[in-house]
């Protein structure tokens, strides 16, 4: 009989191997799926795993897709470590996009003497404000009324989505846009400054990396960061120590909302250049997976953002080159998370074989 037995102390080896094994399992499932769908598994795997890294343009696209994931997942890592389950990053992303897009629209209609570099901080501020405001609703309802933040933040995602839909179908629709649900294209001066000539990679990427460093410092080197992390696993210890759970709630929600909002604003003003109903690629939800795969650690979040950006790009390539449905990406991401959760068990437990007495 096989049993699980608690380890005397967590296994570091398992901690490092677990994401690797989870990835291997995911690749294995992917290969099987390709076979079942009648496609060459080697071709399919190479489109997902190799092609996204092939060449300078590919790498810049990887960085571009990873940027919103990094920003969102850092905020979520902060939240989850504090036991605040913010599932609504997608909604905060959208509202940040609305605020940023709104600002860009304003500047497009009423031109101001600003170039991209000057506009950038305003864009970031607008996005942060929008996302933080949307998250503040969740924080307020949990703080004052004890309403569960998982359900509230999720409902807010649907509301945000409908809000965006109303704006692009209604008041903000481009009058010269042939009745398509989209705003007019933003002026060139509102775009996010690009890093490499000819490529789409923009200032958002180094910003995201900076935020990662700041998050790391905050979580592991400051008193406030440590306080946030106690309230999650040990709420009574936090009360004993006098750490404010209210502070943890508000800080983590406002920061993660703000970061998701910045990601949304950057996406709207950067690669998209206008507002449409399809602003988000599900980034807010993918970021949840990123945060867990990255072990809720800032460095891990950056690495797993790149990994999952690879999956997203791979999915788009698979659709255009092999004729596979784009929804495949979602399946792989789900399998990755499942495998990771299962493999993580072996950090705290080990298998024991016991002969029947």
């Amino acid at each position, binding site marked *: 009989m096989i049993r699980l037995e608690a380890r005397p102390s967590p296994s570091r080896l398992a901690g490092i191997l677990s994401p690797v094994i989870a990835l291997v399992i995911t690749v294995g499932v992917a290969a099987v799926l390709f076979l079942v769908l009648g496609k060459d598994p080697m071709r399919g795997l190479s489109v997902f795993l190799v092609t996204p890294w092939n060449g300078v343009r590919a790498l810049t696209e990887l960085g571009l897709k990873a940027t919103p994931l990094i920003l969102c997942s850092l905020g979520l890592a902060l939240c989850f470590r504090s036991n605040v389950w913010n599932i609504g990053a997608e909604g905060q992303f959208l509202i940040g996009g609305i605020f940023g897009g709104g600002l860009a629209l304003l500047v497009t209609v009423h031109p101001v003497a600003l170039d991209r570099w000057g506009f950038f901080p305003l864009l970031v501020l607008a996005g942060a404000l929008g996302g933080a405001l949307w998250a503040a609703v969740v924080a307020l309802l949990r703080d004052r009324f004890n309403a569960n933040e998982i359900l509230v933040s999720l409902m807010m995602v649907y509301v945000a989505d409908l809000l965006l839909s*109303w704006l692009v179908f209604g008041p903000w629709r481009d009058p010269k846009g042939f009745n398509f649900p989209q705003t007019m294209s933003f002026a060139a001066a509102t775009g996010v400054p690009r890093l490499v000539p000819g490529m789409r990679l923009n200032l958002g990427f180094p910003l995201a990396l900076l935020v990662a460093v700041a998050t790391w410092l905050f979580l592991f080197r400051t008193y406030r960061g440590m306080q946030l992390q106690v309230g999650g696993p040990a709420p009574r210890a936090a009360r004993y120590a006098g750490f404010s759970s209210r502070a943890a709630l508000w800080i983590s929600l406002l920061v993660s909302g703000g970061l998701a909002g910045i990601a949304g604003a950057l996406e709207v003003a950067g690669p998209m250049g206008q507002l449409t109903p399809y602003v988000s690629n599900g980034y807010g939800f993918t970021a949840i997976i990123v945060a867990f795969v990255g072990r809720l650690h800032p460095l891990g979040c950056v690495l797993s953002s790149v990994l999952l950006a690879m999956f997203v790009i791979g999915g788009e390539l698979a659709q255009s080159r092999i004729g596979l449905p784009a929804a495949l990406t*979602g399946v792989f991401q789900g399998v990755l998370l499942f495998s990771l959760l299962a493999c993580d068990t072996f950090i705290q437990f080990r298998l024991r074989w016991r002969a029947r007495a």
Partner: protein
Amino acid sequence: MNQVALLLAATLGAGTPLAIGSLGLLVNERSGVLNLGAEGVMLVSAVTGFAAAYHSGNEWIAFLAGAAAGAALAAVFGWLVIWLNTNQYATGLAVSLFGAGFSAFVGTGYVGRKLESGGEHSVPLLRDLPFVGTALFRQHPMVYLAMALAGAAAFFLYRTRAGLVLRSVGESPESAHALGYPVRRIRLAAVMVGGALCGLSGAYLSVVYAPLWVEGMVAGRGWIALALTVFATWRPARVLLGAYLFGGVTMLQLHLQAQGVQLPPQFMSMTPYVATIVVLVLISRNPLWIRVNMPASLGKPFFPGS
């Protein structure tokens, strides 16, 4: 008058998937396990049910298929959470995300397909009663099944020993284990029942309510069902009430749209979600109320032999 009767009838139909799903989650949560994957389970069983109905032409086979798919996905969740003791929140989210991707993937071939119509369902004789006939007796059998389920759940929980055992596991799995009850198997059974009922609800959505398949068609009903169990303080009768309330809100806004009320359609569509938030706020305001009614071990891991 006929308008009101029609509205009531529509409310029952709209509330039914919420009721069935939420009753399943109620049983699930009574054992102490929180399944945040309800949305994913409903999506997977919606596409499964649709496919089964499309290929077999029989909606009852579709319901069975949906329930089976739901139970299977819930079993995977249950194994991870109960035996491997993975974090219940994260694993539930994984199920939801996986379910969304998987259902979209599997369903690509079924978008735009039509099912053979099941015909009009009604109870003979009673359907012709004035007002009540229109309101109550021209419904799909599932609607009546939902009501029966609520009664069965209440009977099971409060009048049988098995129900007592389930409630005790939810309150203190450690004590139940010390008394020799197979806590993990009981929890798995509860999780699978929850999955099966969510699956039934998903299949109903795609085969009867809509009836069609489109990516993401569950539109948050899984999450609303979760909120409903809290709103109902884990009591079956209140689940039914809450489900019909939500169904009513959804139907009312459609009704108002049809009447030409001049509000942007998106704001009308927001009402179920905003209503959920309002309901959560109202029910959670008194922390004592929740703590007293909630299964005490909900969401916490259980380690036998510790």
